[in-house]
């Protein structure tokens, strides 16, 4: 009988996963520890999350001539059609409205997809969860990365619109980068929270998507926040709208509209609350996800 081939010996050294213990639920300290282990494991497997996300995109467009650039094209067509109609309806100048609408719609679509994919990030990969022990955070990261790749394709539309409309950019626009990083963290937190919750309660994704639909209309995306200035009741829509602050910290710098410190604080508070709820929620549900999916 042959011994193990030489290659196996070589491969053997690469992976280490020496000790593993798992016990029944022992309360919050253990829950947070396990959630922390899960997160660290997920960070270590970033390349796996990345290539899973990439293959998702590749598979979705396998055999199509334009591939993922269909996303770019359909976004461009939608924005082009909407911009002229709404600029006329709102009596605004197309040169300021089109860039505004482009950035807003693309960011909103990104957010909307993050939420809808976040809801299914665990229930979609049921067979993987039940087949192999893998940090749950990998699945959440996969959903965030996948949608960020889609966003990257849509940035072409922003660049084109800015060029055509002659929008001037300054170094101030770079403030969009920290804002965007905050989005990524929020998106990840939201995915682990909603993913677990939606795996348990299968009606929740539908409810969340209906809420997102309403949020689309009550958030300044197609219309300017300044439209509400003379309507005190209407202003409440923005004041208590977390989406508004999050949108504004990325959109404001890109469009060159001044950002107040107040806005930044509110975006940070919204994110802080989300991250806190997500951490507690994920720690509580993590051990049960495999039973729920």
């Amino acid at each position, binding site marked *: 009988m042959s011994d*193990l081939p030489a290659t196996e010996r070589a*491969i053997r050294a690469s992976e280490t996963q020496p000790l593993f*213990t798992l016990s029944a*639920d022992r309360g919050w300290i253990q829950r947070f520890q396990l959630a922390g282990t899960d997160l660290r494991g997920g960070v270590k497997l970033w390349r796996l999350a990345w290539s899973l996300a990439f293959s998702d995109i590749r598979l979705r467009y396998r055999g199509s001539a334009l591939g993922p650039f269909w996303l770019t094209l359909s976004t461009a067509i939608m924005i082009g059609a909407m911009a002229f109609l709404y600029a006329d309806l709102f009596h605004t100048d197309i040169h300021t409205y089109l860039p505004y609408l482009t950035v807003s719609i693309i960011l909103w679509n990104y957010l909307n997809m993050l939420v809808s994919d976040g809801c299914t990030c665990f229930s979609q990969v049921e067979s993987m969860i039940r*087949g192999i022990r893998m940090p749950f955070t990998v699945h959440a990261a996969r959903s965030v990365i996948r949608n960020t790749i889609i966003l990257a394709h849509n940035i072409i539309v922003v660049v084109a619109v800015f060029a055509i409309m002659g929008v001037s950019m300054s170094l101030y626009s770079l403030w969009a980068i920290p804002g965007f990083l905050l989005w990524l963290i929020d998106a990840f937190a939201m995915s682990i929270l909603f993913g677990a919750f939606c795996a*348990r309660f*299968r009606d929740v994704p539908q409810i969340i998507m209906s809420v997102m639909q309403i949020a689309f209309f009550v958030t300044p995306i197609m219309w300017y926040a300044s439209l509400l200035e003379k309507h005190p009741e209407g202003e409440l829509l923005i004041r208590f709208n977390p989406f508004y602050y999050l949108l504004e910290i990325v959109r404001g710098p890109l469009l060159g509209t001044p950002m107040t410190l107040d806005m930044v604080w509110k975006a940070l508070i919204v994110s802080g609350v989300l991250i806190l709820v997500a951490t507690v929620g994920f720690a509580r549900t993590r051990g049960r996800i*495999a039973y729920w999916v």
Partner: protein
Amino acid sequence: MTYLTAFGLSVAFPLYHSDNRSLKKTVLGRASGRFAKDDRQRLVVQALRDISFTMRSGDRLGLVGSNGSGKTTLLRTLSGIYQPASGSLSMEGRLTSLLDPGQGMNLDLTGWENIRLRGYFLGMGKADIARLEADVEDFSELGQFLDLPVRNYSSGMVVRLAFAMATAVHPEILIMDEWILAGDAGFMDKAKHRVEAMVRHADILVLASHQAGILAQWCSRLIWLDQGRVRAEGSPMEVLAQYLPPQQFEEIEKTKSLLATNPVF
């Protein structure tokens, strides 16, 4: 030192989506006490109840039991997929589990792409992934099929690929469900050699199967699971004597004595 210890493991599956009162009553009336209520009054199926054992290097444990006796659930729990409802699990050693042929594989991706994903999962660098690819290609003998999406494979080919990927990175603890025995005779032989080589290097194997012959040959210890409980435990022949109908057991004994005169190991 490689070891695997299960201490008082119990697993209960909540029945969330069958929350029908009349169904609940029928089910509760028929089933012999496997349906229970947990502390929050939810209907649950007791899949595993108070399972304890210890395995050390070189131990090869076989699991027998009728369908639904909890074999696969136990394998999943040992793999760390289900957090037990009570009890604990501790182990040292790199673990690989072969639970479903398609597990962790994306069926729309090609064989090569799946091998690469596995490499990333194992945290490998480029050079290691290249070695993994070479090893899996060599062992699975799938040749040009590796360029096709796994969806187009026959079930035997999926088994080959999955087995080759799982065992290419020499696991210290290998957990296998019975589907692995679905390969053709030639492949089975190869697979057996690989598992035997692995076990000879003082590692741990847990195998669930309905094929008594394989269990008698591969395992050093058997556990008979019945309704989620350990019904009997001991050397393969002892447990099989209780588990199998008498004629089947005699056949196994005959082959076993033949093997004893011509040892494979």
